[in-house]
């Protein structure tokens, strides 16, 4: 076999990966087209409207009408703002509190440490649907129904995060460094803020994205715990569009595009940190 045929033979994975990648990305391309096509072009073209020769996108036929309607008459601007607020609040608070808890479990000595560690592991295996009905009752009794507290408070320090940060601390915050800081007379909380947190920064970045996405895409909690239309995040608001804009597919798909754009952009910008954070709990580095 000469080197050329060998090189071609070695390229066979592309015969699977390339078509697969095209299939994977097709719905997203279609979605972008669907959100920008006029009502008359919607079923006329599979993807974008094309020019006479059929090979170029006819940009003059694209419209931002759906997106304008979305933020105008459909009032999705409010839902977008709600989603942004909820997802970033949970991301920041949840990551900070999980980092604090994980650090304490990994590096501070206190009497109840084994009990709290068991609590973390125990919570990891409780399936969320089991708690849905009693949590509804609890939120009712606490007067938190239809308030953002019902969404934010349960996510304030997720066991999953405490566990990840415990592992991250064991790996990247050396005990000697903490001892040295103590000898220098630093207080315990200052050590966490000024010594441990900077070392945990990669995990904080990854976990913030995980929490942001989890809240952004969370449907069941706002659907059950919130009632007012003007408090709903995108996940619920978008799912209810079909009732009002029944046949307006352009508007519906524009809503979907606006809803998935922030997570996608976040992912494209930070994908390296995100993927390594995601797998760090499972694969020993």
């Amino acid at each position, binding site marked *: 076999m000469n080197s050329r045929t060998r090189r071609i033979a070695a390229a066979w994975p592309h015969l699977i990966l390339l078509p697969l990648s095209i299939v994977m990305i097709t719905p997203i391309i279609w979605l972008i087209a669907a959100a920008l096509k006029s009502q008359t072009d919607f079923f006329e073209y*599979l993807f974008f409207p094309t020019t006479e020769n059929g090979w170029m996108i006819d940009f003059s036929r694209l419209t931002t009408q759906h997106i304008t309607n979305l933020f105008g008459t459909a009032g999705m601007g409010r839902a977008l703002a709600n989603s942004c607020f909820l997802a970033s609040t949970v991301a920041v608070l949840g990551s900070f509190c999980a980092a604090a808890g994980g650090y304490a479990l990994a590096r501070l000595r206190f009497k109840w440490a084994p009990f709290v560690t068991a609590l973390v592991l125990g919570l990891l295996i409780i399936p969320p649907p089991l708690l849905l009905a009693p949590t509804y009752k609890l939120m009712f009794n606490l007067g938190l129904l239809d308030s953002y507290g019902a969404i934010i408070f349960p996510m304030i320090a997720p066991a999953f995060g405490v566990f990840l940060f415990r592992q991250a601390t064991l790996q990247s915050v050396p005990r000697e460094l903490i001892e040295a800081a103590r000898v220098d007379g630093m207080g315990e909380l200052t050590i966490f803020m000024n010594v441990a947190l900077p070392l945990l920064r990669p995990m904080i970045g990854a976990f913030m994205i995980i929490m942001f996405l989890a809240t952004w895409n969370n449907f069941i909690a706002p659907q059950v715990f919130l009632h007012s239309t003007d408090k709903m995040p995108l996940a619920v608001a978008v799912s209810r569009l079909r009732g009002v804009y029944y046949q307006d597919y352009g508007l519906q798909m524009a809503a979907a595009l606006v809803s998935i754009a922030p997570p996608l952009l976040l992912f494209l910008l930070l994908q390296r940190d995100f993927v390594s954070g995601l797998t760090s709990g499972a694969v020993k580095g």
Partner: protein
Amino acid sequence: MARASVAEQRAAWILLSPFVLAAVVFFLYPLVESARLAMTQSFGANATRPVGMSNFSSVLTDPIFWIATQNTVILTAASLLVVLPMSLGLALLLNRPNLKCRALYRLVIFMPQMVGLVFAGFIATVFFAKDTGFVNQLLTQIPGVNTLLHNLFGFDVQFPWLDRHVLLTVFIINLWLWVGFNMVYFLAALQSVDKSLVEAATIDGAGPFQRFKNVTLPAIKSVTAFVFLLAFIGSMQLFELPYIMLNGDPPQNRGVTIVWYLYQQGFEIDDLGMASAVGWILGIVLIGAAFVQFASARHESREARL
């Protein structure tokens, strides 16, 4: 080891207080409460009366619960038997040395994960629509497909993806959403496999299949078990995808899953007691699976140490 100082103990509690507080109020208390609720009949959050175990017998004798269980089990089996092997296969392809565009492929295959279940379901209602959806339109444009399908299966390209074959459609979307997610875990595991072991096996004359079976597979066993567990737990709790795709109204209970059934009981019929009973039935299965996984992982790590 030096004795823990008072300052250290106090700092530990301060740092852990958000977690402990949230865990007790929003997890432990509801867990206990759900056991109590499961044995009451309730209408909304207020009126309850104790009914013993009758909620459990009502659930277990409700044919809709068994349809939901069947749907959930089918989707879970499909996810474990099709999606996971495909993810591993793709990870093996991406792990080949000197593969060009590896990062780009990984990016594109993982990307659907970012779309999220709700929005994927919402997009699917238009994408898979019977008369006007993209998939059926695409099928019509391929010459001959229309007549071929009509002659073979007796249906036109107006294939009822959502109305009649919702499980198949949920499976396709699940595949799209999760294949990259699982692949990323497998790929990370494969990249941590000791290359010298694989080389040694090659020198010893092991073929590619033997190398995979005897070297690679044992090395990624713990990650495989972890991904398996995640996929099992996730599929068993499937709700949003079919719920959104069918607009909350399943035709003849097609596409109802166990968590959807729980939601119907708790928040459409407003019986939190029934919802908690369903929650416990599902919960026992899932917690059992997690225990089996933990136990076998612990068993293995002990064996590895010996």
